């Protein structure tokens, strides 16, 4: 800001410069990858990207062993495994799709990303390879759905994650309670605990804990969306779904989990509340086991499947987990598929379970695992009862990032909107995302 600089002069100058630059660059479109189709070389370097876990050592050891076995069987093939941080995986993987030359051949990815990655043109179709693979026959149906888009398979499941009900055995014993058998009993138990122990949440719930809330929706016969032909239509505003939404949001309140504190909680925060002894029950995953073991609740808790609406039924859980896929741009297709089979095979999954506690995606391997480690038994039972999955469409990424479901739950629990109004607003947003995704 010099004393002599006249603003209009500066602006005119900048405008002129902008126009000149724009003119010079006209025709310079934003970059688009050429998406060169890969080749099928039988020797050379295979690059693999796997997620870096919090305690990655045991995972790296199992993977290292599997890779060494692969290299022995495939002379001339070398494998380079890179562990990428989970937080920045989206950028890394998108960048890999954009620049095939620096992209890996094989990647690990979250199973809710499958449809988006397929739409982005990043993953190779391995339907025939998957069908010709004997081990794949034991893959559980929910895990198989998580690699399938429009009837084609785009990878192999690596592990599944599923949630169940953690409860404090000491609190239950002192109050003379039994683990709830229906959702109504669950709500009643939570209320009773909070009444008698006001410093504890009966059941810790969170307004942005989508995957903790969905079992309530599914258990009441609801669905997120229905598929007609190739098109999805939102179903969160159906009567059945609204019954489930009412059941979940009914857990918020001074009688259990006050909205002022619980409306903004996510899944990790509710598990944290349980682990630190501030909640008598929580909906946590098999992957939360270690966090709870490291908390105050250690040694004073047990896990049962989350009850469904009817006595003795189990609420369908969300089948989370990760898959391994081959990139379309890979120049070693056959080798990459072989490596994918090695990494997701029964032996590797069984070893990964022992090392990391990742639940295997093969029903027989999982049964075997539950025998070795009894703590996974309720999770295995939950999976056997039938797990559910989010709509397999690229629109799911937009719905997830747009926080459509958390906003719906939060609107209800904070009293801004009725269940009807919030559910129909969410359905409208979901439908526009489905339309946009084509």
């Amino acid at each position, binding site marked *: 800001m010099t004393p002599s600089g006249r603003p209009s002069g500066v602006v005119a100058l900048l405008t002129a410069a902008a126009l000149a630059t724009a003119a010079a660059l006209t025709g310079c479109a934003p970059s688009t990858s050429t998406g060169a189709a890969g080749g099928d070389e039988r020797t050379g370097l295979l690059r693999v990207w796997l997620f870096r876990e919090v305690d990655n050592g045991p995972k790296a050891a199992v993977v290292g062993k599997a890779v060494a076995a692969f290299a022995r069987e495939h002379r001339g093939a070398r494998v380079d495994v890179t562990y990428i941080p989970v937080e920045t995986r989206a950028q890394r993987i*998108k960048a890999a799709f954009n620049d095939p030359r620096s992209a890996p051949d094989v990647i690990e990815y979250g199973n809710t990303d499958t449809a988006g990655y397929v739409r982005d043109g990043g993953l190779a179709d391995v339907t025939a390879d998957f069908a010709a693979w004997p081990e794949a026959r034991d893959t559980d149906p929910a895990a198989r759905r998580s690699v399938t888009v429009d009837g084609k398979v785009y990878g192999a499941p690596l592990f599944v994650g599923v949630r169940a009900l953690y409860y404090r055995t000491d609190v239950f014993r002192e109050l003379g309670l039994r683990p709830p058998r229906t959702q109504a009993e669950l709500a009643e138990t939570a209320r009773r605990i909070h009444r008698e122990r006001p410093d504890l949440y009966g059941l810790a719930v969170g307004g942005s804990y989508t995957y903790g809330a969905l079992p309530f929706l599914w258990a009441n016969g609801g669905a997120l969306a229905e598929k007609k032909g190739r098109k999805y239509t939102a179903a969160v505003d159906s009567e059945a779904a609204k019954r489930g939404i009412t059941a979940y949001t009914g857990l918020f309140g001074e009688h259990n989990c006050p909205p002022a504190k619980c*409306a903004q909680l996510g899944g990790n925060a509710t598990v944290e509340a349980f682990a630190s002894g501030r909640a008598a029950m929580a909906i946590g995953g098999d992957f939360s086991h270690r966090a709870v073991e490291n908390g105050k609740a250690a040694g004073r808790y047990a896990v049962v499947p989350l009850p469904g609406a009817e006595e003795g039924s189990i609420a369908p859980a969300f089948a989370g987990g990760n898959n391994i896929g081959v990139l379309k741009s890979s120049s070693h297709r056959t080798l990459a598929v072989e490596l994918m089979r090695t990494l997701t095979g029964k032996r590797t999954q069984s070893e990964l379970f022992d090392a990391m506690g990742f639940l295997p995606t093969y029903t027989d391997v999982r049964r075997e695992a539950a025998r070795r480690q009894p703590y996974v038994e309720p999770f295995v039972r939950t999976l056997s009862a039938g797990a559910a999955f989010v709509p397999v469409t690229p629109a799911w990424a937009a719905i997830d*990032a747009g926080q459509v479901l958390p906003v719906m739950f939060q609107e209800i629990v904070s009293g801004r909107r009725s269940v009807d109004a919030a559910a129909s607003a969410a359905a409208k947003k979901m439908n526009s995302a489905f339309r946009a995704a084509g």
Partner: protein
Amino acid sequence: MRTHSRWTPWIYLAPALVLLGGLLLYPVYQLGLISFLEYTQAQVSGGRPTSFQGFGNYAALFRDGQFREVLLTTVLFAAACVLATLATGCALAVLLTRVRALPRLALMTAALGAWATPAVTGSTVWLFLFDPDFGPVDKLLTRLGMSGFDGYSWTYDRYSAFALVLLEVVWCSFPFVMVTVYAGIRAVPAEVLEAAALDGASQWRIWRAVTAPMLRPILVVVTLQSVIWDFKVFTQIYVMTNGGGIAGQNLTLNVYAYQKAFASSQYSLGSAIGVVMLLILLAVTLAYLRLLRSQGEEI
């Protein structure tokens, strides 16, 4: 030799202009271009062809009721932040000129500490201070007799959440205003102030009639800086309200753009939001400079 003297400054400026053009104008040009295309992850990775949308992205944006609401919220919130930051910064700058060396050093150190703290760290610490279960603020207020604050969740109510974020924004941006204005005040000749005091002017009158007019160019710079910073606030909202607050009640434009566009790879929509922000900031800046010029001020 007239032509020669006319072009000489441009030759000297050329390196800087080329750099600015490359680093500033080219990205803005790309931003504008993408905002007219359909450009999602599928186009970036070459899965689908890029297509021209005209003003389609802008139309979609302005049809979206939430975007209009977020835009209004952002303008009001930024205005409140700018006013609070300027008031705090100026008041403390004046205070700095009045106190002894030791308290001045203490205030300066505290302010520089706040300035140097990364936004994510600052936001996390503020969040902890106001935590309903463990935060010292609620405990202190309760002990002072305000029992309503026992376990009070600051981020639950829309306005208290915005107030909390505003406090953090002011906390981390007032030092810039304070230091700059303080330097400006020190540059005001002592004789002028002394003369005003001898004429019997009150402190407030001296500030209004002598110091503030002399500080005008500096105040213009800090105001514009604050407007631009506070309009683009992202980290504080994102961290403190967990990505936009309960049911999106605390969304500001930048967080909205991130959520709507980048997290779901709708780059063209995100670019359109970016262009709208750019135009608003440009309009505010030009209007402000024009207003000053019409009052006969050269800056």
